């Protein structure tokens, strides 16, 4: 239901495209189908790995590693776990909010969420498929560096560093 605007938008676009050039419109659909079919196995792979990770590593463990002890250890594990995992936003942020309540610094939380969203070992297969090994590795390394910088700046603003 919430996607009704999106669907209407696409339907209108295709309607206009159809009127302009039927053959090209058919080609577009064909191209869309091909892209979809190439994409789906990798996507299912990611989802399965995510579900398995979430199941095998319960929330408690994550909270344990990131949520107690000295700040450097927390930061290290936040970055490490965040890089390895690909959690959807609606699960990640409640966990982050829980960590916040436990008193974890914003620095660690920023590191955690940023690496989770930007860097991903789980997303390696699909990124490698589309862009090749080198870009995948370099982009993720830079992503990690960026995440650390962002987290440090945020920690600075919250007077934690």
């Amino acid at each position, binding site marked *: 239901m919430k996607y009704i605007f999106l669907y209407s938008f696409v339907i209108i676009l295709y309607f206009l495209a159809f009127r302009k050039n039927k053959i090209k419109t058919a080609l577009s*659909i064909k*191209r869309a189908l091909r892209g979809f079919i190439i994409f789906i196995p990798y996507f299912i792979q990611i989802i399965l790995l*995510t579900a398995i990770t979430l*199941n095998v590593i319960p929330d408690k463990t994550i909270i344990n590693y990131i949520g107690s002890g000295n700040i450097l250890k927390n930061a290290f594990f936040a970055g490490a776990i965040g890089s390895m995992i690909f959690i*959807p*936003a609606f699960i990640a942020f409640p966990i982050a909010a829980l960590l916040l309540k436990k008193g974890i610094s914003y620095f660690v939380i920023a590191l955690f*969420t940023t690496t989770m969203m930007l860097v991903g070992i789980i*997303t390696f297969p699909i990124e490698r498929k589309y862009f090749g090994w080198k870009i995948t590795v370099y982009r993720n390394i830079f992503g990690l560096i960026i995440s650390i910088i*962002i987290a440090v700046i945020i920690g600075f603003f919250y007077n934690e560093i």
Partner: protein
Amino acid sequence: MKFEKKYFNIIFISAIIAFFSAAYIFDFQRGQTIALLSADFFLEVLPVLPVIFLLIGLFEIFIKRSVIIRHLGPDTSNIVVKYTFAVILASLNVGGMALAFPVAYALKKKGADMKVVFTYLGAAGLVRINMILFEATFLGLKFTLLRLFTAIPLIIFAAVILNKYFNGHTEFSEKGEC
């Protein structure tokens, strides 16, 4: 090798179905939870998938290469437009970085500058609209805005650096370039 790749999908998906069926038949609790969790995630993102690929299809067939190269290409005349476009496009993304890869690849194939593609990829991870709303709800507006304003320049900066390494890079060329 070619034989393997062709049947990879079918084998993979059959294996999944077999595993989940076995999990239910043998009442394997862990397996069942994993199945439900996966189905949950999958259904969360599924409504958007066909739409995104339909849009990519239209983009690939109808938009001329010259248009993209003129507006988003390596020429340095309209820098602000290029990066703004990349960030705005990325903010419209829903459901994770995985979905950003096909779109980024389509852009690259059409001749967009790698700086733009990398900015889009980076921003697709960090600057999504629905994610920003979530974040503000759970972690506070100050945190969200702070993260946003530090992330965007850094993403662009990293994109420029990555561009120096990877200009003119072509992997995964499908047949039927346009």
